[in-house]
């Protein structure tokens, strides 16, 4: 009980400075979220789900300062892509540098000024609530209760270009909570890009409801600020024959916890969640994924690769839950770390829980050093050691990168990886 009390106290302190919006269509949804949150309390390091990642910097009353990283000699990722830009500076929407929130086949609005009777009332906090069982995710409930803004997008047709959420970070002490809702209607298709560090501390939730035959693509690169911290949740609910593909590149950042919570509700759907993380030094990166197969013949894949050096820590908690009705499920999960020195660590907890009897699920997890034989082979052909290491690191990450369907976007992300490698001594 003492632990619970401590959690409640921590929660009271954490939310004491936050405003609970009591007006508009989200008011009751926010109040519900606060009720959920109060019952859970904030996560503590003794919680099983936080065994490998200390949540204290994510739950602290104030965000630890983080200076923005400026790479003037590098172009920002996605800058050459035709896209609709929506820019947040330290969590505040910047209309001057954003494009008009209009595109054929899409309804786009901001959480902060969305009118009543909004379609998003069936999404906002709804997927998050479902994602709270069987594992609690208090930071997501906190987000639903206190998010200051976010983007609401309903796709009814084929979006002609990606929606690009750009999170700029200027203030050393910014502490930001954004909440996005996406609804991909039947037969519609949408690509969301996210990039940038957003804030010194960033709590983000994206709820994605994909109706039958809908297609959703998500490509994210989290900013390079060394000291930034982020807790993100990506909730996906998939209808029949729909598809959901998400890829995240994380380079730097002192603390990142990316949770993906996917649920199949319709048959014959596909969900792929992938990530590449590259960290040097004070870097803690946690991918926590929970995929629930609740329908037949769905395919899920989790591909996570981490390259770690100088004491960087990588965590992977991935679960595939196959319910008794989810026959012919095809589940795949791989998590791998390339440890470039003896100081780095990779902690993995792959889990399968299967109640149906006719399924195919495989999982694997490895960690290892760079292949010396391959390194020598490259050097013997004249490739300098640094360059050879970079080639091998990129090759290691390639399986995750291959999850990006669009070749132009994939190339853009790959260049981002190369730039990072160039800055970090070849690997």
């Amino acid at each position: 009980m003492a632990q619970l009390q401590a959690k409640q106290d921590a929660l009271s302190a954490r939310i004491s400075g936050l405003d609970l919006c009591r007006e508009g269509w989200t008011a009751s949804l926010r109040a519900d979220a606060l009720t959920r949150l109060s019952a859970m309390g904030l996560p503590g390091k003794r919680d099983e789900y936080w065994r490998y990642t200390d949540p204290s910097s994510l739950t602290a009353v104030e965000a630890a300062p983080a200076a923005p990283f400026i790479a003037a000699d590098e172009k920002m990722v996605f800058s050459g892509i035709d896209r609709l830009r929506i820019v947040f500076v330290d969590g505040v929407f910047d209309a001057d540098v954003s494009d008009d929130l209009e595109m054929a086949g899409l309804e786009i609005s901001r959480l902060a000024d969305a009118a009543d009777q909004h379609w998003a009332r069936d999404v906002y906090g709804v997927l998050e609530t479902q994602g709270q069982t069987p594992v609690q995710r208090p930071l997501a409930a906190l987000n639903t209760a206190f998010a200051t803004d976010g983007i609401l997008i309903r796709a009814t047709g084929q979006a002609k270009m990606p929606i690009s959420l750009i999170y700029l970070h200027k203030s050393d002490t910014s502490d930001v909570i954004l909440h996005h809702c996406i609804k991909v209607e039947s037969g519609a298709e949408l690509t969301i890009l996210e990039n940038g560090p957003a804030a010194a501390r960033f709590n983000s939730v994206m709820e994605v409801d994909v109706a039958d035959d809908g297609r959703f693509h998500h490509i994210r690169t989290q900013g390079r600020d060394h000291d930034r911290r982020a807790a993100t949740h990506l909730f996906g609910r998939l209808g029949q024959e729909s598809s959901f593909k998400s890829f995240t590149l994380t380079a730097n950042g002192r603390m990142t916890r990316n949770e993906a919570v996917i649920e199949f509700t319709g048959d014959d759907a596909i969900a792929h969640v992938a990530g590449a993380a590259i960290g040097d030094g004070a870097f803690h990166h946690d991918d926590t994924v929970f995929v629930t197969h609740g329908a037949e013949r769905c395919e899920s894949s989790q591909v996570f690769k981490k390259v770690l050096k100088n004491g960087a820590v990588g965590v992977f908690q991935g679960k595939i839950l196959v319910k008794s009705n989810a026959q012919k499920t095809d589940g795949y999960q791989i998590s791998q770390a390339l440890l470039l020195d003896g100081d780095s660590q990779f902690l993995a907890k792959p889990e399968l829980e299967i109640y149906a009897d006719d399924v195919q699920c495989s999982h694997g997890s490895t960690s290892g050093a760079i292949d010396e034989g391959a390194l020598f082979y490259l050097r013997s052909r004249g490739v300098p050691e640094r360059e050879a290491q970079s080639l091998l690191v990129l090759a290691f990450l390639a399986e995750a990168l291959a999850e990006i369907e669009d070749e132009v976007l994939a190339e853009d992300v790959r260049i981002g990886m190369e730039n990072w490698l160039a800055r970090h001594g070849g690997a």
Partner: protein
Amino acid sequence: MLEINNLHVELEEEDKAILKGVNLSIKAGSVHAIMGPNGSGKSTLAYVLSGKGGYEVTEGSAKLEGVELLDMEPEERAAAGLFLAFQYPVEIPGVGNMTFLRTAVNAQRKARGEEELSAGDFLKVVREKGKALQIGSEMMKRPVNVGFSGGEKKRNEILQMAMLEPKMCILDETDSGLDVDAMKLVSEGVNALRDAGRSFLVITHYQRLLDHIKPDFVHIMANGRIIKTGGPELALEVEQNGYADILTEVA
């Protein structure tokens, strides 16, 4: 071209002497073969010359055109003109064969202060040189050596050699794992590279490779030393009588 002088090498890990005073002088444009029983140190010699880790040179020198190789990093030796065709070419998943080759060619050009080849020029040369070795675009697209047959791997080694145009080529048991047709193809690839300015050191167990790649000199290596040197007829002698006679004769 290559001057090896009293080369002594030990395994770093176990303090075991492998090479015990190798002397070898190879002139520009000549082809030397090294034969010898298993464990005589042939592959070690190839690895030490190309700079593989795990070996300690305790004495001696190896100079390429008068410059000490043993002080250089593997990539510097390659840029200086040394090439080793591996007995077991390494598989590198995730790195395309074309990317690999272009990176290598341009890294060497850069190290020598030459201009890098453009993608278009490079492609043209690869196509032309690949054709003779029956390496098509499909093999170039695959990851380096991944899923290649034994013959494809060795042909791929020769293509790298043809593209990198080294001065001193070491072939470590390039005939192992090859059928008769593949051996012919590989040998033709090697012979096409024979040139007054280019030398070869061919390590093999069998005389048959030397029917295709005709050596100027044959050396017999045993117990970490070169114990006998002769002309091509020495290889025939080994083929007929094995090493026993030579070993007794020298002992």
